[in-house]
């Protein structure tokens, strides 16, 4: 089992990375062949990602919702699923390279930073035994995935002179992510109230989630009310995702707090 999950994670990393490279090549050269192979790689990756979650569930003997390795698997599985949905719906493959590179790097972070987390059977500590954990983590995964997808689109929109990626689509995805992040924060507060007896304690993870939420709230207001569109708006979406990554990695590895086990 331990070997199995290691193999799956490496294969997953390669599938996503290959997908990214093929998307970049295909978009640059306009070769349809490369682009459809890229899509295929991503679909294989998605299956591997789901397999990783199933194997992890078997190893842990519980739903994999607790440590950062487990969360990263949810993060990428939703990002990639959303991306594939977007690709099918918008019939555009322009953002594939950026989104898959982000996903590959996230899986890479499991290999580099979270070694051994997925191979060991680690029971939940008492504070994590709550139905609110499930809903808090799953909404967070969807929120982060939306922001990753939006950032991927925004990067490609900035990088290319001519693009079919519109502000409208980026705005919609950010709006979806914002709703999910709002739910994540409220569910997290409800849970913190039950587990620790205070719903908001300015612990670093809470604080940085709030900061992330604020930047997207600004984006939504500026986008609609002041008509900030195009490059400035896209830069904000990318900055927002940098904050997402800091809330996830930076807080876990640089600042300490209640959440530091996750």
């Amino acid at each position, binding site marked *: 089992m331990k070997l199995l999950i290691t193999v799956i994670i490496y294969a997953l990393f390669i599938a996503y990375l290959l997908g990214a490279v093929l998307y970049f090549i295909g978009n640059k050269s306009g070769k349809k062949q490369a682009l459809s192979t890229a899509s295929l790689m991503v679909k294989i990756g998605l299956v591997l990602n789901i397999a990783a979650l199933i194997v992890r569930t078997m190893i842990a003997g519980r739903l994999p919702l607790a440590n950062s390795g487990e969360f990263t698997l949810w993060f990428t599985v939703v990002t990639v699923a959303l991306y594939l949905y977007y690709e099918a719906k918008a019939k555009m493959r322009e953002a594939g390279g950026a989104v898959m590179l982000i996903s590959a790097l996230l899986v890479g972070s499991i290999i580099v930073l979270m070694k051994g987390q997925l191979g060991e059977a680690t029971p939940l500590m008492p*504070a994590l*035994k709550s139905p609110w954990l499930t809903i808090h983590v799953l909404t967070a995964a969807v929120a982060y995935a939306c922001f990753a997808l939006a950032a991927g689109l925004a990067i490609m929109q900035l990088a290319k002179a001519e693009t079919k990626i519109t502000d409208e689509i980026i705005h919609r995805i950010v709006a979806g992510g914002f709703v999910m992040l709002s739910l994540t924060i409220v569910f997290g507060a409800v849970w913190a109230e039950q587990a620790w*007896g205070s719903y908001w304690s300015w612990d670093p993870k809470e604080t940085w989630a709030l900061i992330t939420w604020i930047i997207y709230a600004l984006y939504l207001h500026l986008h609609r009310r002041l008509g900030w569109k195009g490059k400035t708006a896209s830069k904000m979406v990318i900055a927002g995702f940098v904050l997402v990554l800091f809330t996830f990695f930076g807080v876990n590895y640089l600042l300490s*707090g209640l959440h530091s086990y996750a």
Partner: protein
Amino acid sequence: MEILKKVYRYLSSMKTGLVLLVLVGSAAAVGSAFLPDVFFNTWLFKLLLIILSVNMVLCTANRFILLKSRLKKNRNKWFREIGNLLLHAGIVFILAGLLVYAFYGQNGQIAIRTGDTVDVSQIIALKEPFSLRLDDFKVEYNEDGSPSQYNSYVTVLESGITKDDAVISVNHPLNYRGVKFYQQSYGYLIKTKYTNDTGSEVEELIKEGNFIKPEGTERTVKVFRYIPNFDPNHGMVTKTMRPDNPRIIFSVYEDKQLIGVGAAQFDERVEIDENVYVVFPAVEPYTILKVKSDPGLPLAFWGGGMFMIGVTMALLAAPSQGKKTESIDSNREMR
């Protein structure tokens, strides 16, 4: 009058709100990185939150007043309008809840030993006082020896009469008439048997790290720590929390000089000096509960609910801005 109007306009504008949000965000970032333990309690930060609340109250109230005429103008947008209103009002409720807690909330901590009763009104002010008795404290373990749950079995008493009983565990607080009790921590007192300076044999409960002075010797003994699962390879730290190999770590001093350290089993007779013995028959756990009364909690709770529903209505369920909504954007009220 003009000035007042201007101040009001400024305070209630959305632009000011956005500027305040940027300020709160930057302050929180700096605070969490450099002064995590104090910054969020400073007046500067609280003032910022209060100004933000005032701004949002005014802004939301204005939107509420204008709601009817806005709805007349754009019938197709009522869903989003209601959502927006709920979302902003929800945030205001949450901030109000926090404010009420800041003024009227109380919290404290109680440590109770099995069998003991604690008067809760000694910890926080209560209109109708009541007491809490700990009947039992049990830790459950996973297969690997890590704790899976801490349970405090308690009875609520009013003037000696039993009113309620409950099990308080992590994630399952007890709520008794608005006072909440949370399982926070626990510890052990170490039962220690020795002959004291009056010559009689006593059995005392010693707090970890405290000293005893047995009769018949100049030496003192520090009852250092209880280790549930002792393993020499782990040193002074327990291998797991489960009591698989319980030991009491103690040290012996003479003239303030450390002369020896030991790891005693329960009931083991430890010779401290010639014919002077100390025995540790058992340990007794005590529970540590957090006690809190927060009259602002219902406000925050309803605010959270309104906020979640509002955010979903305004952003997810509403159609995206298509051609139809252009007209609304052209009459933005950028007050």
